């Protein structure tokens, strides 16, 4: 006898499912089930993945959901066909958007409105009918069954029976069977599956504890009594339903009536609404493109027109002309509104995108491969990403909402999944480990998958010494591995929005995420499978910083224009060559600074290569050193095959860009563009070794047929394999490089303006405010403390000084800020007393203003001012001051010591204002032979040195050899010293680096000079004492 499970939960039931969909499908297929349903709680998040996997496994996917009704009862719904799927989407969207967040409830009216093409099962014990029976209300249960039968149609409504071995199940099933007979309804056996194997019950129980905030020892009605809700085989189901064989048989009939409901391959993006009369979308796109081309190129040589013709032909043949017009429209809106933006990603491979002002990369001049972006063979949805000034990104999305209708635009969701730290925290809490111990150990876990903790323990000394591998944690670590990657909750994608031709709730369930944003229940991967196109409108603080820098420079009377910054400024390149790139977009990490000090960049091509080369792909592929040596002429540029020369010439024979991989596959092995792009995708998504090996065999075979020797083909493919995972596409690198170079130019010529803007828009970039201030000072900029009369909302510039903003002061939020600035509009504060009279503010804010020195210019004794606060009185427990007494008497108390002031300023501002922490140590370090970041260069290369400072951004990037190497910088009062820690030293001292907070450290090591940069190879690392 066969059987089909029609009530199945996956991890997408969010902490109520412990069996992976992959495992579920494999098990069902192995058990000979012809179909399988997925019915998560109030969502279809797993539907697309499930559908794809089921089809691959040769079983029919049934798209379903377990909804929650207004009385909190459950009902199982199955889509019979695509129209049924649409109704599921509508029902779920109404349930989510019509109720408070996280409490979706479906009303009877909604069910009636969207009941067609659905099959319904009466639900688990939480179903309305079983609940009524268990309460002894059989008559109402029968009436309810009749109501559902009326809603869905008698032939589509089934009395669901479960043999879950809970007390009362026998009675309940007898009653349900009687009810079905009495009302002439059919029954259906289900097992309310929440995991695949019986053993996974433990994981489900733990997840239930996490969901219900209980500990294992505690009782909660949501926790299940036994482990019976696994994916039972047809034989097991037949056995436990021995008294009701028809209920088992009926599952096959229900499965038969449900056809695959998810339609893929649709085109759901909207027709562009503003096409002039008599014009087609294709014609209008062409017109706009050539108009832009004439503006960009002035005159149009054949090379340009034929490229544009080629691109437009592909765009239109693939049917994406409306999509391009939509993106153009969004970018055009930003231009009109003077919102700074820059297109990034593979869209920069397109000359059409350049002519439409979507990107700033001239793909024709750079000879970029359009097929990396779009190709006829691949026919995939193009992916266009645009960075906007972070302050105005929402205006652009609001424009699209208004233009296309709020029911047709939504943000794409993300799935927050269990990683090592979150799994460890949540599960350890459920298992009742001490809170302090959980916190201590969780903080030591790196950002890794939850099933990699054992591996991390083997590799990282700070984990070994933490005791996380003690026997008492063994089970916990196994449970962490079991939930690795399980979704925890739905979040909001940072920039991805979809625009649809039809109401979105017809094609995807919608729900509310945090901050009231309406999101799709499908993430960026799944959303494209149903035919929607994601447009990434990203929010980039760098854009905001650039905009502010431009404005403040112009305020000085300068005619500075960001757009026309010369791309060959010698001073800028000289600065880059010294590795002085803190603050430079994309070039400020220690690895980038080290690269810049060695590379000798002299043109934009070098910057583009720089952006692409400090990536895991090229690093692991051993491409960095050959690239630098060849760039500097220290190593001959050679090519394994003459066909590689035109492809790799601009990168000196080294594979740097994804586009080059495609071109190599085409030139050497004769791959079609589609095959070549498949290779790229397998590579960049670090897919299975088996898949890569399969493509490799194909590559070598086709290369041989193309006249390339097997040996050469193998070597070429080994380079490609080495490059695997996370290489950049050239277009993206070029887009970023332009911004990188221009920010470098601004730092060189307008450091105060740029750093003030960057400080105002924190957090952004690689370094925190204090490090940025150290760097600004190193460049001769003076950092001034906050001043109640001079500081503004943002950091301000006056000549070569930066004044710390009021917003930088801990606790100063919009409300306080507005009060202070509004009061100050009527004139500066004349005294502390005057401030108290004019500004009613929170006590904590007032204390912080005093302690960080904001009132120093009015009254220099901070302690006196603190004493003065209580004299003014406070209003109840609100902390809000009621300042009616204007005769504040300041008691005669001595002020804080300089050290106390220093500590308070750092605590409140996060910035060492008057002196750096390390300057207080210097007099003790100098006699002990310690060097600092300024005099380090004077020491002999290769000599032993000792340095000390505050550790900045310790990290362990992937290495070519696979061995661990840690990198960090030591910040002192003059700048940064970069430290490299190799495996042996790391194993001995690494525990000092990856703890929180990282203490001030001293490093003993060997000075190394590479190019114009210095770094230290650490031999010993100690706490600074």
């Amino acid at each position: 006898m066969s059987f089909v499970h029609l009530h199945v939960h996956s991890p997408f039931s969010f902490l109520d499912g412990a069996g992976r969909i992959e495992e579920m499908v494999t098990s069902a297929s192995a058990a000979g089930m012809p179909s399988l349903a997925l019915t998560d709680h109030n969502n279809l998040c797993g539907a697309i993945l499930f559908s794809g996997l089921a089809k691959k496994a040769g079983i029919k996917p049934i798209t379903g959901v377990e909804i929650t009704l207004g009385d909190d009862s459950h009902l199982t719904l199955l889509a019979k066909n695509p129209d049924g799927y649409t109704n599921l989407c509508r029902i779920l969207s109404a349930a989510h958007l019509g109720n408070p967040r996280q409490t979706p409830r479906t009303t009877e009216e909604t069910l009636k409105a969207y009941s067609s093409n659905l099959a319904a099962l009466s639900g688990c014990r939480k179903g309305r009918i079983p609940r009524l029976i268990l309460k002894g209300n059989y008559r109402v249960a029968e009436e309810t069954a009749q109501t559902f039968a009326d809603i869905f149609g008698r032939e589509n409504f089934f009395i669901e029976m479960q043999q879950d071995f809970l007390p009362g199940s026998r009675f309940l099933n007898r009653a349900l069977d009687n009810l079905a007979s009495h009302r002439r309804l059919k029954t259906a056996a289900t097992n309310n599956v929440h995991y695949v194997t019986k053993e996974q019950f433990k994981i489900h129980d733990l997840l239930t504890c996490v969901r219900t905030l209980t500990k294992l020892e505690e009782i909660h009605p949501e926790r299940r009594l036994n482990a019976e809700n696994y994916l039972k085989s047809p034989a097991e189901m037949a056995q436990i339903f021995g008294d009701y064989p028809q209920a088992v048989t009926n599952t096959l009939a229900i499965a038969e009536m449900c056809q695959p409901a998810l339609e893929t391959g649709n085109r759901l993006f909207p027709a562009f609404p503003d096409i002039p009369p008599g014009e087609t979308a294709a014609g209008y796109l062409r017109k706009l493109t050539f108009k832009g081309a004439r503006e960009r190129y002035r005159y149009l040589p054949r090379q340009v027109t034929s490229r544009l013709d080629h691109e437009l032909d592909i765009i239109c043949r693939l049917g994406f002309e409306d999509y391009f017009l939509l993106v153009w429209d969004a970018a055009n809106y930003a231009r009109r509104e003077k919102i700074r933006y820059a297109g990034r990603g593979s869209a920069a491979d397109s000359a059409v995108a350049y002519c439409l002002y979507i990107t700033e990369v001239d793909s024709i001049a750079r000879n970029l491969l359009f097929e990396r972006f779009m190709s006829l063979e691949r026919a995939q949805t193009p992916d266009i990403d645009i960075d906007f000034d972070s302050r105005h990104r929402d205006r652009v999305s609001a424009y699209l909402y208004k233009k296309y209708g709020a029911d047709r635009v939504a943000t794409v969701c993300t799935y927050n999944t269990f990683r090592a730290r979150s799994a460890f925290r949540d599960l350890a809490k459920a298992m009742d480990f001490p809170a302090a111990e959980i916190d201590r150990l969780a903080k030591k876990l790196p950002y890794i998958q939850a099933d990699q903790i054992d591996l991390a323990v083997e590799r990282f000394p700070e984990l070994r010494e933490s005791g996380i591998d003690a026997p008492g944690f063994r089970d916990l670590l196994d449970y962490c591995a079991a939930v690795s990657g399980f979704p925890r909750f739905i979040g909001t994608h940072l920039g991805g929005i979809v625009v649809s031709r039809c109401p979105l709730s017809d094609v995807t369930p919608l729900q509310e995420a945090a901050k009231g944003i309406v999101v799709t229940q499908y993430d960026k991967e799944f959303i494209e499978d149903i035919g929607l196109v994601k447009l990434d409108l990203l929010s980039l603080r760098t854009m905001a910083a650039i905009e502010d820098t431009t404005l403040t420079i112009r305020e000085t009377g300068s005619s500075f224009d960001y757009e026309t910054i010369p791309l060959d400024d010698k001073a800028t390149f000289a600065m880059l060559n010294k590795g002085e790139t803190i603050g430079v977009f994309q070039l400020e990490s220690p690895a980038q600074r080290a690269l810049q000090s060695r590379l000798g960049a002299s043109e934009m091509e070098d910057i583009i290569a720089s952006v692409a080369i400090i990536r895991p792909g090229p690093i692991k592929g051993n491409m960095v050193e050959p690239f630098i040596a060849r760039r500097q002429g220290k190593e001959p540029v050679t090519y394994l095959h003459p066909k590689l020369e035109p492809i790799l010439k601009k990168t000196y024979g080294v594979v740097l860009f994804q586009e080059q991989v495609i071109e190599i596959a085409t030139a050497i092995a004769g791959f079609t563009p589609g095959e070549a792009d498949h290779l790229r995708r397998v590579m960049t998504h670090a897919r299975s070794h088996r898949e890569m090996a399969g493509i490799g065999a194909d590559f070598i075979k086709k290369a041989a047929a193309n006249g390339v020797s097997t040996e050469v083909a193998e070597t070429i493919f080994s380079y490609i394999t080495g490059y695997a995972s996370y290489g950049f596409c050239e277009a993206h690198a070029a887009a970023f490089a332009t911004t990188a170079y221009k920010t470098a130019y601004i730092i060189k010529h307008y450091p105060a303006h740029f750093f003030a803007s960057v400080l105002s828009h924190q957090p952004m970039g690689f370094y925190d405010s204090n490090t940025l201030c150290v760097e600004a000072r190193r460049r001769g900029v003076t950092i001034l403390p906050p001043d109640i009369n001079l500081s503004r909302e943002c950091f301000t510039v006056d000549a070569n000084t930066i004044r710390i903003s009021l917003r930088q002061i801990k606790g100063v939020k919009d409300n306080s800020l507005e009060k202070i600035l509004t009061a100050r509009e009527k004139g500066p504060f004349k005294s502390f007393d005057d401030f108290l009279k004019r500004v009613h503010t929170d006590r904590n804010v007032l204390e912080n203003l005093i302690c960080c020195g904001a009132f120093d210019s009015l009254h220099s004794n901070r302690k006196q001012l603190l004493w003065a606060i209580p004299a003014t009185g406070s209003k109840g427990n609100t902390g809000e001051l009621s300042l009616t007494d204007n005769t504040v008497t300041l008691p005669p108390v001595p002020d804080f010591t300089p050290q106390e002031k220093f500590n308070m300023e750092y605590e409140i501002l996060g910035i060492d204002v008057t002196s750096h922490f390390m300057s207080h140590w210097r007099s003790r370090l100098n006699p002990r032979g310690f060097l600092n970041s300024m005099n380090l260069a004077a020491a002999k290369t290769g000599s032993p040195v000792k340095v000390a400072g505050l550790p900045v951004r310790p990290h362990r990037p992937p290495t070519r050899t696979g061995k661990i190497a840690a990198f960090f910088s030591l910040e002192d009062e003059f700048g940064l010293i970069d430290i490299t820690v190799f495996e042996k030293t790391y194993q001995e001292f690494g525990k000092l680096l990856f703890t929180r907070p990282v203490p001030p450290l001293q490093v003993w090591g060997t000075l190394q000079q590479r190019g114009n940069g210095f770094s230290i190879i650490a031999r010993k690392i100690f706490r600074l004492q």
Partner: protein
Amino acid sequence: MVKLINKNIEMEYGINNTPLAFRINGKWLPVSQVLDIWKDTGIWWDGESEKTFYRVNTPEGSLFELYRDSVSRSWFLYRVYD
């Protein structure tokens, strides 16, 4: 009135471990009807094994709860309803 007994007992059982008769105080009591069956995984995190409970009555009308431990395969008289 319910008495908690929780004592190991001898049991005669049939297909699928269905209780047929059990011995209590040296006397075999036949099971006339299994009224309910449920399973309980217990304190699994402490190594406790799964138990299958049976609520049964005897010809005299007495009501008992018996369980079978899935690991030891032993039977226990859990509760008696007077």
